[in-house]
């Protein structure tokens, strides 16, 4: 982005936030973290087996449960819905034509939207963290045997778990940004997303060898975090990402590049 655009960035992000006030994209962002935390809470509240071992920090276990539920059930569908709903606000308002008459490059405006989408996702993840902490303390109040209040949150481990979850979903986000821009539509990307998600479940269940390269499979594989991080590594050693994560990032980069090219060259009829 050129310097002038960077200077305007905070102001333009504010403009994006005004745009999404009370839209489904905004409500989904506010809601998904709370929903996942509720699932984890109910699971721990009702299931005695969820009790951790004595003298072990329960927060790690609690956040791992959130990661499992998130990646297995919600990550794919939430990112599909959120991305489609996010871009649909512009399509519904037929706003591209007027936005592109403003003194901003098309690619910059499009990338601003992608950037704002990531802010939304990070807000959603932050709400998830807060909801998990609050629900953990409520759980501790009702079932003191969990001992949440005796331990502090292992932040490094927790943020690492959530970061791996987010990376596993990048491919899906990239594909759905491209589909939203290509079809300027809400339903078609959602239908493709549902098909992709179901196909992902089937391929993971079959342990298909090409799962590494199928973006909808990657979040599901990330359920088993240990395997997701350590198996299938072209580059061994600490600090490198697994092939699943690299594949997800590559999907994202390719799809965003294609969407940017599509958008900058598109005639606005």
């Amino acid at each position, binding site marked *: 982005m050129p310097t002038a655009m960077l200077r*305007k960035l905070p*102001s*333009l992000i*504010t*403009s994006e936030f*005004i*745009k999404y*006030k*009370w*839209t489904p994209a905004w409500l989904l962002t506010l809601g998904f973290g709370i929903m996942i935390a509720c699932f984890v809470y109910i699971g721990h509240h009702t299931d005695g087996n969820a009790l951790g071992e004595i003298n072990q920090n329960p927060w790690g276990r609690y956040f791992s449960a959130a990661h499992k539920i998130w990646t297995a059930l919600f990550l794919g569908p939430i990112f599909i819905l959120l991305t489609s709903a996010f871009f649909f*606000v512009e399509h*519904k*308002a*037929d*706003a591209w*034509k*007027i936005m*592109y*008459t*403003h*003194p*901003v*490059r*098309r690619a910059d405006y499009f990338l601003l939207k992608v950037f704002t989408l990531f802010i939304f996702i990070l807000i959603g993840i932050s709400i998830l963290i807060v909801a998990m902490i609050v629900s953990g303390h409520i759980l501790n109040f009702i079932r003191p045997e969990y001992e949440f209040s005796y331990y502090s949150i292992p932040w490094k481990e927790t943020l690492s778990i959530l970061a791996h979850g987010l990376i596993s979903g990048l491919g899906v986000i990239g594909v759905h940004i491209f589909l939203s821009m290509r079809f300027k539509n809400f339903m078609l990307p959602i239908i493709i997303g549902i098909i992709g998600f179901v196909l992902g479940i089937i391929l993971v269940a079959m342990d298909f060898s090409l799962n590494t390269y199928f973006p909808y499979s990657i979040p599901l594989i990330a359920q088993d975090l240990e395997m997701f991080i350590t198996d299938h590594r072209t580059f061994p050693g600490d600090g490198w990402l697994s092939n699943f994560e690299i594949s997800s990032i590559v999907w994202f980069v390719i799809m965003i590049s294609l969407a940017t090219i599509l958008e*900058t060259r598109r*005639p*606005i*009829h």
Partner: protein
Amino acid sequence: MIEINNLTFAYERGKPILNGLNIHVPDGSIYGFLGMNGSGKTTSIRNILQLLKPQSGTIQVNGNEISNNSPSQRKHVGALIEAPSFYGHLDATDNLHIHSKFYGVGRNRIKEVLDIVGLTPHIKKKTRKYSTGMKQRLGVAIALLHDPKLLILDEPANGLDPKGIIEMRTTIQQLQDMGKTVMLSSHLLPEIEKVATHVGILHQGKMAFQGTIEELQNVKEKDLSLSLKVGQPQKAIEILAAGKSISKKHDLLSIEISKADDIPPIISKLVTAGVDIYEVKKVENNLEELFLTMTHEEKENAHSHA
């Protein structure tokens, strides 16, 4: 302000919408850009606004040649393109806020433009609940937000009721009073005549006419007719027959005249002869007839040059 030379554009190969278009919009003018539906007005405007890429020719705005996707050249242009675009779940102030951030415009300016277009009493209402006229006015407010020198309004009277059309006309006249240059597209000649200082008529991707409103009046007066409802049509034809082309339908006569000054002698002759006159109407070319006249003249000129 806007200078277009030899602009060509085609959506499909071999089917040009714009075919060597030349436009000259003078500084401070209200330029009425006329053409039938589908004549290429919106395509021309989208080329000026860089929403479409010209296939050949040049476009200059404020003396600078525009190239594709050059944002700085759009700073001094405000636009309303066909049906205005809004975020319907937001009110007018929020909609204007969104656009204001691109220009670093403050809250006071938002209030000002809402006042200019007369939407201040409706700022709390969600824009999806706005009438067509209110939407068009909000579209103009967005175009005005950054106080541009040039405003391009594509069919701003589209879908408006007569009251809305009058309000829009008033707004456009106010803009000229503020020293803006306004390019205004429409397919309604009478509407353009009421506000424009200059007119361009687009026909088959080219300018069939371009000039001041007075020059257009001269062209129109070349093909005037007089419509008369009389009590004795046959008698009236006999009185007026010499040198006049007259057609009759029931008690309605249509008499070709060359200028408005021909009307009083005709009426005087009929009154003197005792013909009862119930209705007198000067009929000017409508846009379609004007096109036909102009294109016919073009062909004749081409033949005479050959």
